């Protein structure tokens, strides 16, 4: 694993992302000349340990999905490196691999999508959907494929007799289970879950969250869990990164981040979560305005136009990404001085 200031310096790091950027060009005119860039992901570095769940939170448009798609190489990143450790102990830089090379290693990582209705081919049966990655990776042939699919369906809580049905015959929660079974089929070590429960009904969300948790143990999985619901992320994640306009603004263990947030944006996000206890009236921090435009971000700290604590320096200078407490990183000029309010943890 390469030397880096955000690395945990231990050997069980499964994924390490270093200075990853993804710019989408803005083109105009007849010659499609580039006139600017949307900085969707802007210099993001983090790592995930084996067997861990890393939560990535932020509002829509902050670049969290783009980051996830860069990591599984669904899109190419502009610069940076993505190191993934294989079970053989070998470490690969996914960012520089060609499509042909990737074909050999794609079985090690997979993605689960938000929309259980749009992410399954309506013309394929469940057997084909779940069996496809098994066949494509030459993990089994003939009858063996069917046996593997059956055991996968069993693991995700679907009935084996539904093998030859099509996706439309299933409910949203069941479809999400099919998507999970498909992503498990090639026995990956890393699964990128992009908002896996946000399209589901409340009573189904808990089923899927519990399932993901038990599969993590059973299959020894590492999750990158992308979500906007802070209560859900608190429940699943060991460590969390908070993104704002393409940048990580804070990263820490879940308990540290929730009990002692160091970035004003994290504080505001936590305070905006509606409470289900009618006695607790949390003091809400209502942020003015909306998330900045990533093609024309503000000067200095990107958050300063909405920040209740902003001072002159914030509009002039970009804050450094620094380790303020052990394993607690933040990008804010005043992180050490501000006394921000977190959540009272009852566990």
């Amino acid at each position, binding site marked *: 694993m390469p030397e880096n200031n955000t690395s945990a310096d231990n050997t069980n790091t499964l994924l390490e992302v270093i200075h990853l950027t993804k710019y989408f060009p803005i083109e105009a005119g007849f010659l499609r000349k580039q006139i600017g860039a949307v900085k969707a992901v802007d210099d993001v570095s983090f790592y995930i340990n084996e067997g861990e*769940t890393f939560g990535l939170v932020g*509002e*829509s448009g902050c670049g969290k999905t783009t980051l996830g798609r860069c990591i599984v190489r669904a899109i190419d990143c502009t610069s940076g490196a993505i190191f993934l450790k294989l079970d053989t102990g070998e470490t690969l830089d996914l960012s520089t691999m060609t499509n042909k090379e990737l074909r050999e290693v794609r079985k090690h990582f997979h993605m689960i999508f938000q929309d259980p209705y749009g992410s399954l081919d309506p013309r394929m049966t469940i057997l084909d959907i779940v069996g496809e990655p098994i066949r494509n990776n030459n993990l089994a042939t003939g009858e063996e494929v069917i046996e593997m699919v059956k055991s996968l369906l069993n693991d995700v809580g679907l009935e084996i007799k539904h093998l030859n049905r099509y996706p439309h015959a299933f*409910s949203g*929660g*069941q479809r999400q289970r099919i998507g999970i079974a498909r992503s498990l089929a090639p026995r990956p070590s890393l699964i990128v879950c992009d908002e896996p429960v946000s399209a589901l*009904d*409340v*009573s*189904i*969300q*808990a*089923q899927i*969250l*519990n399932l993901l*948790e038990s599969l993590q143990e059973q299959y020894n999985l590492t999750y990158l869990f992308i979500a*906007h*619901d*802070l*209560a*859900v992320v*608190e*429940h*699943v*994640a*060991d460590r969390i990164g908070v993104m704002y306009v393409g940048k990580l603004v804070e990263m820490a263990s*879940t*308990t540290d981040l*929730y009990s002692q947030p160091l970035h004003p944006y994290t504080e*505001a*996000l*936590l*305070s*905006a*979560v*509606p*409470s*289900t*206890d*009618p*006695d607790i009236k949390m003091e*809400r921090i*209502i*942020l003015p305005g*909306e*998330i900045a435009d990533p093609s024309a971000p503000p000067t200095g700290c990107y958050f300063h136009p909405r920040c209740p604590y902003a001072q002159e320096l914030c509009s002039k200078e970009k804050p450094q990404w620094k380790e303020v407490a052990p394993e607690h990183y933040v990008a804010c000029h005043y992180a050490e001085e501000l006394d921000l309010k977190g*959540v*009272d*943890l*009852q*566990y």
Partner: protein
Amino acid sequence: MSTNKILSVNNLATQFVLPDGTLKAVDGVSFDVHQSQTVGIIGESGCGKSVTAQSIMRIVPKPGLISAGSIEFTKSGQNTTDLVGLKKDGKTIRSIRGGEISMIFQEPLTSLSPVHTVGDQITEMLLLHRTKNQSEAKDIAIDMLDRVGISNPQLRFDELPHQLSGGMRQRAMIAMALSCKPSILIADEPTTALDVTVQAQILELLQDLQEELGMAIMYITHDLGVICEIADIVHVMYLGKIVESASTSELFHNPLHPYTQRLLASIPKLGTSGRGTKLDAIRGNVPVPLNLPPQCGFQSRCNEIIDNVCDVKVPGLVDMGNEHYVRCFLHSEEEGKTYA
């Protein structure tokens, strides 16, 4: 709290006659809305919460029809009208719809016209219901846009919906809905598509406007946290029926129906359910309310089912005291009925 009752829904039943049978989307729903009150309706997709709102507005899509019940609307100091008895496109309902009862929807981009400016869409409502004077209508519209917190209202007045962000569009829709000073605002999942920080802005805006304008809000959502923040009284819906009703603090402190209890237990709560804790999930799925036998709708997913009771009879909605109603055989043996 004022005791002026402005809306009274009694045993409302709305059904969709489909080739496979009759789908009872709303099956005997009753509740009241008082002046300046926020009534929360909570339920999962398919529980009939949106169809209830559509029935009140008389905009139930075909082949749906209101098959029983009444919706009594009382304008302050005036006679009571039964909205069910009105012609769907008659003059009376058209003056109530938008003028007296307004509605905002989940996705403002699909409910606003993409080819008309925000200003035109608001003034159209004003010209229909409030004034005949074009320039006065424009003044009111700009004032409304300003009130809902849209910066540069003069400029925004001439913009098209796609030029606004999601939060701004929702604000524009609220401005439109409230421009005719309705006595009831029906909000159907208005913040579901929005980010948490924007959701917090919109919830605060609704509460401020309610204080200022004094309208009642009927707030429909699946989000228990949002309902806890905004509602005075909550009705929990499941499979077309209200299964529990109580004041917000009573419901969240002392939920009686197994569905409400399990729903509250199944959601992760900030600060209480950390890594490694198991969520108490409700098994199974919401059944489709098509040709269902008379039974408790929740019986297939309930852990406390009483054999030969819950699966053969429909429980009645029973007052447990303290304005707390519950529809469950664990609490009372009283039977209810289904509405055809």
